[in-house]
């Protein structure tokens, strides 16, 4: 075995052993994934990023029986997203905010939207970010989803935002176009005034038997 390969193997083994010592949960990963994931987690920790989401993503992969390389790349991708979220939201962002921000970025929201959310809402923006990610995942175009969440973010309670997301998902399931469903749900959350503002959405009201 060439010396360089042997050295790399020894380094990987050392990394893996260190990782398990630091967090016994990583012992559930296979020999391929363990050193790779450990390296990502170490880097994230050094950069001041939350590591718990990375551990959870690795454990999800392990429990689902995914190949080690797939687990490592998923964790690496999440770490990169967390880093992007932190760059936008600032060092003061909480771990749940960063995790939700990473999901929103992964869904396709631009950094500017995240920054605007941060400026527009005094309280935590975990839920607005999560709802934004979920709306986009449901098929709502990023711009529409961002506009809806930004419109509500300044004053709405978390529960209102979650209701908005539920209403949109339900209406999409009932056959509405995602953009129309978002407009109709906004009307629902805001009440009669918004209904007039979004009157055009009424024609597309879903679920009509």
């Amino acid at each position: 075995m060439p010396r360089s390969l042997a050295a790399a193997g020894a380094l990987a083994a050392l990394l893996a052993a260190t990782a398990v010592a630091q967090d016994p949960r990583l012992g559930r990963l296979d020999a391929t994934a363990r050193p790779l994931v450990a390296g990502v987690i170490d880097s994230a920790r050094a950069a001041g990023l939350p590591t718990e989401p990375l551990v959870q993503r690795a454990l999800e992969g392990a429990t689902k029986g995914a190949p080690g390389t797939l687990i490592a790349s998923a964790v690496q991708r999440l770490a990169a997203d967390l880093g992007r979220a932190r760059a936008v939201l600032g060092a003061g962002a909480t771990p749940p905010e960063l995790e939700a921000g990473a999901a929103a970025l992964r869904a396709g929201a631009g950094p500017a939207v995240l920054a605007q959310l941060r400026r527009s809402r005094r309280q935590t923006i975990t839920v607005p970010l999560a709802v934004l990610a979920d709306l986009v995942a449901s098929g709502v175009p990023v711009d529409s989803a961002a506009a809806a969440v930004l419109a509500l973010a300044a004053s709405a309670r978390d529960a209102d935002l979650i209701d908005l997301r539920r209403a949109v998902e339900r209406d999409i399931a009932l056959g509405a176009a995602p953009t129309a469903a978002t407009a109709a749900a906004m009307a629902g959350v805001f009440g009669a005034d918004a209904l007039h503002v979004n009157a055009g959405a009424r024609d597309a009201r879903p679920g009509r038997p």
Partner: protein
Amino acid sequence: MGTSDGELVRRVLAGDTGAYAALVARYRDRLGRYAVHMLGDRQDAEEALQDAFVRAHRSLARCDDPERFGAWLYGILVNRCRTTGGRAARRARLFVRDDAALSGVPLPSPAERAEWDDTVRWALGRLTPEYREAFLLKHVEDLEYEEMAQLTGAGISALKMRVKRAREQLQIIFREAERV
């Protein structure tokens, strides 16, 4: 997301009971809105809704057009609300059946009217069940008269009259309230 009603119905009929859960989740809030407004009581509404879902599952094979499962389910719920409404009326005197008695019904106290929500429920409760049903199906659920006729078994001209009378009565009720 994307699975059609027809596909879910076919899966249920093939033995996949779990697919029915997706239909229940899909229509729960939508139909719940009608039941809540029609019956004026959330508990009654949930009972009616649950019963409608169970009845629909039991007779799913008779759903002629699985793609229109929602419309078919709607009809079951409308019927179910009628029987519940009858029971609720007898139990709580919630509905005023006699048009002539409308003016004799005392207005709620200012405290009871503090919330718009309560006011709307109170106003709806003063309509007869037939008027309330027609009003909700037309203006809130946005149905065409032909669809309403299919659901209720009533004629189109009768339904148009009920909707018109419901609107007139609601305006009278609110004018009364403004004078208080």
